[in-house]
């Protein structure tokens, strides 16, 4: 009796003990091949699913469009705020013609409008955070495509590209002179509950140290 051999070449006649061991090794090898084949099928399916999702659209169309729309919001609110400020400054100038009591009422209202106009700064920073998040998604989609070597041509049986795209650089540009750890401090406006109020900040400033 000859022994099992993955290569198909008959091996030397085994002893009764070694025959059992080689059979076990061979069966184990077959299972490994099956598992690798299943893994390859899984990756191929994932790759096809990714292509079917049209990830290039996310990178090339959806995210740039969304970012452009958000930029337009920032520009529009900035322009509108400037208009409001122009009008309020004109109204404020009328105070000299009013009685002291009316001037006080006018100035109070004008001050509140100035305070309210700060919304443009806050919303601008929030929108910038959203745009940064979109850029991160864009980068991750790109990295995922690179990892899976996804190319629509694969569906036609073409080989994967040799030069997969490199991940995009980080979106945050470190400010000149900032320490590396300072970047982690740039979080922008926080949601109510996550943010410290002015009273909390005052207490922290008064604290020891």
């Amino acid at each position, binding site marked *: 009796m000859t022994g099992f051999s993955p290569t198909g070449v008959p091996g030397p006649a085994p002893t009764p003990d070694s025959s059992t061991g080689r059979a076990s090794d061979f069966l184990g090898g077959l299972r490994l091949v099956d598992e690798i084949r299943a893994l390859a099928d899984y990756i191929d399916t994932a790759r096809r699913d990714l292509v079917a999702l049209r990830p290039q659209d996310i990178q090339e169309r959806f995210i740039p469009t969304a970012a452009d729309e958000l930029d337009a919001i920032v520009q529009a609110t*900035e322009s509108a*705020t*400037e208009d409001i*400020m122009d009008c309020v*400054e004109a109204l*404020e100038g009328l105070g000299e013609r009013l009685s002291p009591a009316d001037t006080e009422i006018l*100035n109070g209202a*004008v*001050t509140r409008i*100035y*305070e309210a*106009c*700060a*919304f*443009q*700064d*806050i919303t*601008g*920073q929030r929108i910038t955070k959203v745009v940064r998040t979109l850029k991160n998604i864009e980068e991750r989609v790109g990295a995922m495509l690179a990892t899976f070597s996804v190319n629509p041509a694969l569906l036609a049986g073409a080989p994967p590209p040799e030069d997969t795209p490199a991940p995009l650089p980080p979106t945050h*540009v470190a*400010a*000149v*002179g*900032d320490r590396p750890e*300072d970047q982690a*401090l*740039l*979080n*922008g*406006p*926080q949601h109510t509950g996550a*943010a*410290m*109020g*002015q009273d*909390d*900040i005052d207490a*922290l*400033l008064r604290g020891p*140290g």
Partner: protein
Amino acid sequence: MAVDMNMKILIVDDYKTMLRIIRNLLRQLGFNNIDEAMDGSAALQMLRATGDYGLVISDWNMEPMTGLQLLREVRADAKLKSMPFIMVTAESKSENVIAAKEAGVSNYIVKPFNAETLKAKMQSVIGEF
């Protein structure tokens, strides 16, 4: 000692609308001698050029130089190190406040803020007016 209402105040912010808001609020408080800069490096140049500012009111998140770095530069400059410096920012996490405190900030205002808060923090730094 009475506050000099003609003191030069430098406001620093990369949003021109915010510069305008703070300028108008300061004007309503009686301060009219106000200069503006749109980032820390421009502000530092102005501070070093004249050295006669009585107060700096600065945003944090600006490029290329942030308000925190401006604060550190000011505190490291022999001629500017005692300059009153108020940070006005949307950065409201405790680590931000601690970092600013460690860098030597005089007071810290979180955006959005109102005129009353601005006045109170200014008074705590430069005195009653």
